[in-house]
């Protein structure tokens, strides 16, 4: 709230330095966010909270300061010059909606010389950043920014039938604003109406018809309380927020209306007008002040510090609370009406802490008792994944969880995207259905800035509708394009390819202890046909990898091929079913045999692996491909494959002859199954002796 130091001085004698003032305000939670000099005044911008509408006026701030500085609050002496008439004879007030308007007060001020305000008032209005309009409006604003209670002034002559009705609007009704626009009203909106039609949207804004103008002589000053929720709903619906609605939706001080009306009347009287006798005050169900029981021991239990009784009493009294001792260490506290935020014992304890000073509360580490901790397995696994990807040269990125609907369409994922009803912009109106979209943005961004190789990953959620349910699925995605590795004078950098991505996934699965995974060729909308693999684990598909479709890349645009993978994380992060145990090291040597074949180039490695697996070869410890090439001297459509078989017996050293005969069986079987031709004399190397 913009707070004028001079204005504060109307209520409190301040004999402290400016810095001391700022510190005192900060210490009680009224943070001075900034301040500026304004002629002979200083304007403080003080942060206020949604539960403290009482601090939305200078008096409220002064009250807090007075309590903190242990100073008295100066009372304004309201002098009202009165006419012979009684207010209640001149205007009739009817509240149809007592729940939405628990109290409605007012006073009539006659013979106002409507015109510019006197300089002192203009200065005040300017100080808080408003423009002076005329003396009547300025006075109502002055009262609002003093007491935090909003008023409204109507031109008395424009109130048809001298009757004020607080009712709900009818569906067809409108209210013409000061700007001349018709605000459509609905039947849930509370209005102030005269005999004929609405003249104000209650607690929010007045209409053109009854507005105070230069020709106004007499005004009716409204000083009422309105229901916070109703005000909030209406002002949101009509899209109008005013200083009045801002305060009413935070809650009104039910005791304020007559006081605020009197203050306005007094000020207008000083400007030469006269007020009618008595405040008209419709308050059908007077509300009793709230009480709260405060137990002294609860203060220490909550704050970790003993606060002496004298201090408690003094602070609460200075803040306007009334204390009634019930027994030793227990008080009944009566809460002043302006403190709508205080409802419970704990709220009172906060007041005591606030004025005692948070800085005086001791500093302790809570005792650590033994209790079961979470396993932290998920975090551990995520970090394993990240470490592995870092090792493979993938940088980590984090993108927004939003996606441009145009981009989302390109992926054609088949998922029903989750739409944001009130997005920041239309380009971020969907929740992402794939992480790859963001990663492609990153590729385009970094390519434009000269990056030659971009290998990045992200872990995060994708979102989609599944029937009525909004699903959030943790994913890991990686993309790879351009040159691999770091530049170095000894090395030639190669371009990334399918096997870079596949290698990462294979290693990742093994590294997390999920050995039983497999790949299968598949078509998937993100990837080029024939360049897409599905990753299966534990009986379900958990991801896809391959070459991203050109149409997708074109929309970024990215010219170079991008290899990518996206996989579901949940299964991967689970704890393995088997607990980890070491495997003993076998002391007997292995025998390794490399066999080279000429094969048809359509025979897949997976088929060979499958066939080898089916042979149930004794002592086979490891089987892998160690070379594959085609071209001269290999005939067309053929390929040279070199397979390595490693044999080992855990109980003894294998004999060369045993291995020979096993090897022969393998060769014969593969020849038979795949029509392989043995390429050259197979090498037999004994790993241990290195002898032929």
């Amino acid at each position: 709230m913009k707070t004028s130091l001079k204005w504060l001085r109307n209520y409190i004698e301040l004999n402290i330095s400016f810095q001391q003032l700022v510190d005192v305000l900060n210490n009680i939670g009224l943070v001075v966010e900034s301040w500026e000099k304004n002629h002979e005044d200083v304007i403080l911008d003080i942060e206020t909270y949604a539960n403290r509408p009482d601090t939305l006026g200078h008096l409220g701030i002064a009250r807090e300061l007075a309590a903190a500085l242990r100073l008295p609050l100066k009372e304004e002496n309201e002098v009202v010059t009165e006419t012979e008439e009684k207010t209640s004879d001149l205007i009739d007030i009817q509240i149809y909606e007592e729940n939405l308007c628990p109290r409605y007060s007012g006073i009539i001020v006659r013979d106002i010389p409507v015109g510019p305000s006197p300089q002192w008032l203009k200065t005040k209005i300017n100080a808080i950043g408003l423009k002076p309009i005329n003396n009547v409006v300025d006075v109502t604003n002055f009262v609002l920014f003093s007491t935090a209670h909003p008023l409204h002034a109507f031109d008395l002559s424009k109130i048809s039938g001298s009757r004020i009705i607080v009712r709900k609007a009818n569906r067809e009704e409108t209210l013409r604003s000061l700007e001349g626009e018709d605000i459509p009203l609905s039947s849930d909106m509370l209005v102030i109406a005269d005999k004929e039609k609405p003249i104000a949207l209650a607690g929010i804004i007045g209409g053109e018809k009854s507005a105070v103008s230069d020709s106004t002589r007499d005004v009716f000053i409204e000083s009422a309380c309105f229901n916070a929720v109703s005000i909030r709903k209406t002002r949101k619906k009509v899209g109008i927020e005013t200083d009045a609605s801002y305060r009413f939706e935070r809650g009104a001080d039910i005791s304020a209306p007559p006081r605020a009306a009197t203050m306005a009347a007094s000020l207008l009287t000083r400007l030469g007008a006269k007020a009618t006798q008595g405040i008209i005050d419709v308050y059908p169900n007077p509300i009793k002040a709230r009480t709260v029981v405060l137990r002294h021991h609860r203060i220490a239990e909550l704050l970790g510090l003993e606060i002496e009784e004298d201090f408690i009493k003094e602070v609460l009294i200075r803040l306007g609370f009334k204390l009634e001792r019930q027994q030793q260490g227990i008080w009944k506290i009566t809460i002043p009406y302006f403190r709508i935020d205080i409802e419970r014992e704990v709220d009172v304890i906060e007041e005591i802490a606030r004025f005692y000073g948070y800085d005086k509360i001791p500093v302790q580490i809570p005792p650590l008792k033994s209790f079961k901790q979470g396993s932290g397995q998920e975090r551990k696994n995520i970090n394993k994944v990240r470490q592995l990807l870092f090792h493979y040269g993938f940088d980590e990125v984090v993108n927004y969880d939003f996606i441009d609907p145009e981009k989302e369409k390109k992926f054609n994922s088949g998922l029903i995207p989750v739409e944001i009803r009130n997005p920041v912009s239309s380009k971020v109106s969907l929740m992402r259905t794939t992480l790859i979209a963001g990663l492609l943005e990153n590729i385009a961004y970094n390519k434009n800035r000269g990056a030659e190789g971009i290998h990045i990953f992200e872990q995060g959620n994708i979102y989609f509708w599944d029937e009525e349910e909004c699903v959030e699925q943790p994913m890991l995605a990686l993309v790879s394009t351009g040159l691999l590795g770091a530049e170095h004078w000894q090395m030639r950098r190669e371009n990334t390819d399918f096997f870079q991505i596949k290698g990462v996934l294979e290693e990742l699965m093994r590294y997390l202890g999920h050995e039983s995974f497999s790949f299968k060729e598949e078509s998937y909308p993100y990837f080029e046909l024939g360049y897409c693999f599905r990753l299966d684990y534990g009986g379900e598909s958990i991801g896809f990898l391959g070459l991203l479709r050109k149409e997708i890349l074109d929309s970024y645009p990215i010219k170079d091929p991008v290899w990518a993978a996206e996989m579901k994380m949940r299964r991967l992060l689970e704890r393995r079913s088997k607990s980890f145990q070491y495997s003993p090291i076998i002391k007997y040597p292995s025998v390794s045999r490399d066999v080279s074949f000429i094969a048809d180039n359509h025979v897949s490695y997976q088929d060979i692996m499958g066939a080898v697996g089916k042979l149930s070869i004794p002592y086979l410890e490891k089987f892998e491909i160690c070379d594959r090439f085609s071209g001269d001297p290999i005939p067309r459509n053929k390929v040279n494959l070199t397979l390595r078989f490693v044999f080992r017996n855990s109980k003894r050293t294998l004999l060369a002859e045993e291995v020979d005969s096993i090897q022969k069986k393998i060769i014969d079987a593969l020849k038979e199954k795949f029509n392989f031709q043995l390429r050259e004399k197979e090498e037999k190397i004994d790993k241990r002796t290195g002898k032929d």
Partner: protein
Amino acid sequence: MNDLKEKIEECKKDFEREFSHVEDEDSLGEMRNLYLGRKRGCLNRFIEDLRDLSPEEKAEVGQKINKLKKYIQEKILECHEKLSFSEKRTEKIDMTLPGRKRYWGSPHPVILFQQEIEEIFLKIGFSIESGPNIETDYYNFEALNFPPYHPARDDWDTLYITDDLLLRTHTSPVQIRVMEKKKPPIRIIIPGKVFRKEKPDPTHLPMFYQLEGLVVDHGITFAHLKGTLEYFLKTLFHEKIDIRFRPSFFPFTEPSAEVDINCTVCGGKDKKCRVCKGSGWIEILGAGMVDPQVFKNVDIDPEKYSGFAFGLGIDRTAMFAYHIPDMRYFYDNDLRFIRQFLRK
């Protein structure tokens, strides 16, 4: 026989003399042929000469020959090893050339910073919890003591999916989810993404990371809140920092506090500092004692238990820690920015 013995002695001396001149594999090969060669090698010739001797003499001289043969073999092998090693060194290398590089991926600064924060809390017995990014109004607001239509909701500009579903505006809903399932003692942190309806600018983003903490047990006090946060902030910012607790308002804590540290950028010395606006203080945490209404909402008796909660923006705090002027850098994902954090 003595003749032969002398010849053997002579041979050994010849070998040693010639051997001392051997400088490369070629001359070593010659030496091998000359002394050990099957046909022309002099040791074999001595063996031929043995024919004329008596068995006793044969044994004696034969032993000598074998001894010499072994000696020469060893010397040659030794020399061979030496030569082949030094051969590798003959190619002069420019040791000033750069060593081999490895392209090692870099962590994202926000995740890196999140983990640094997590480590600090893990050390004092906190464990990590998480919850969904798409929340219901109940968990995000109502259970946290934001009544419907309460203006406090305006401080959390919300992105809505439906009337009831929204993108969580803070990590606090996870407090409720955890307390619904688990009874005290509770000592957790909750890192995660949160969303606000904000247009990106240097200090506001529609998505950022928050970290929430919650401790619930018998006898937990505001003093414990202060102690925990002081431990955390002093550990995180290494350097000596000043910490200030001041009253604030959050619907889900009472009493509530905001925590400031002295400005890490200007140290409170620059009256025009963009980060602290010249106040010397930057707001870093929101905190407070768990509101009794929140406890009631999850069936924990506020007369028996008490607790504190706190929350901070990870991105925002990382900005102070690394002097990053613009929050958007984190989500531009410029690799020249991200890769700086390899060295962190």
